[in-house]
């Protein structure tokens, strides 16, 4: 099963590499959001620094809906979904593979965004370990929940508008936890960031399991 998951992940990433949608569209979008907030908050240093964690993760929330849409639409073209079933790849493997691909893309965006906040907002990172750990754990949860919901809205009309309504409430714990962890890492608020990682990890595990169990019924029935 892991082999199949890896096959699917590699295929998705290969398609992304070939078409460069994330690279040429999503990353600039994320960077633009940072710049816009700079303007909106009047380049007011203290305010920007306080808001950095929140802005970072809200941006990632929106980026994740784009990434998930893209991941799902790869399979809706020309009967690929059905063919995946016919090829005998178990649905949980498809789920894990696609989640990995989404996670990798999100991590790439996060790295760029980190560079952005360090440069544009002069963010002073006190604990890089915490920053990277948070990104990793949070992204797993985001990718899992997103991939499951992406498959759910595949083939439904107006899916671009329904997906955020479904995904963002589910991701609320990630937003809360990751932002608090970043606050600690940036030294802006006195909280214990590492304890929030526990919540993020729990969220990730639960949603990975949920996705692996439910993906099959969505792939077969819808």
């Amino acid at each position, binding site marked *: 099963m892991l082999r199949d998951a890896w096959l699917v992940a590699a295929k998705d990433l290969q398609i992304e590499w070939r078409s460069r949608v994330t690279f040429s569209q999503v990353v600039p979008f994320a960077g633009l959001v940072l710049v816009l907030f700079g303007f909106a908050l009047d380049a007011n240093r203290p305010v920007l620094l306080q808001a950095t964690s929140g802005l970072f993760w809200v941006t990632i929330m929106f980026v994740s809906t784009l990434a998930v849409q893209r991941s799902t639409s790869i399979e809706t073209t020309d009967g690929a979904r059905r063919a995946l079933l016919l090829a005998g790849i178990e649905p949980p493997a498809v789920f894990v593979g696609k989640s990995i691909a989404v996670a990798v893309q999100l991590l790439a965006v996060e790295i760029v965004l980190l560079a952005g906040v360090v440069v544009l907002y002069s963010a002073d990172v006190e604990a890089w370990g915490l920053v990277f750990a948070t990104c990793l754990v949070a992204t797993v949860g985001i990718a899992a929940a997103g991939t499951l919901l992406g498959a759910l809205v595949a083939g*439904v009309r107006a899916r671009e508008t329904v997906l955020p309504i479904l995904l963002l*409430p*589910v991701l*609320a*714990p990630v937003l809360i936890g990751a932002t608090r962890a970043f606050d600690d890492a940036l030294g802006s608020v006195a909280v*214990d960031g590492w304890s929030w990682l526990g919540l993020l990890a729990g969220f990730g595990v*639960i949603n990975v399991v*949920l996705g692996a169990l439910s993906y099959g019924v*969505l792939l077969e*029935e819808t």
Partner: protein
Amino acid sequence: MTNPPLDLPAHTGSRTSRVLGAAVLVGVATMILLGFFVAPEDDLMADSVRMIFVHVPSAILTYVAFSVTAVGSVMWLWKRSVWWDIVAHSSAEIGVVFCGLTLVTGSIWGRPTWNTYWEWGDVRLVTTLILFVMMIGYLAVRSMGGDESAVATRAAVVGVIAAINIPIINRSVEWWADRTLHQQSSITDGKLEDWTLFTMFLGIVVWGVFYTWAMTHRFRIAWLERELRDGDLDKAIAARRAEAAASGGAS
């Protein structure tokens, strides 16, 4: 392919539903009487405490309705039970109304005490707000997409996702309130007078009866809608086979 006309009832009422409906009316009248004239003012909140008679029952029924939807979703996925699917859908529709009512009354009630319309430290209220959006999402998924059983499956998965994630959301909001806002403040945690408590519990019962009444009607409407749309499977099969004769073997 046209369906022959069905024997449709003129309305979805029945003796049971009429009894339930009457009980709701009597209950509401009693509550108004008790709520406005018998139950006393609260020491801290004065008259605004009377909001509790609507807010708490609405909150409880919101979560009851949501739980029913969750159970119905599981039953559809597990047993493909159309009955449970309709129950899940109906419960979500009614529940979303209760949810909205909970949020509005919670906000109005809190205003005099908190001095703001929204208190982020009220963990239950914040969680209920997120639940509200999720229920809207559930209903949105219901209203798009064609194939009946595919719609049911999608909605059921949303229901299960929501049911599993709501506790996590609740816990994370709780920690958030504890560790950053440094206060959890729920308007409902104060001490209540006897008559106030009684009227509140009566409210829960009355809301519960209302929920049952509304579910009965909503369920029946949905059931009849399906009958109308799908007709009889055997008739459909017969009509389909008749196409063969109609095309007369011509290829």
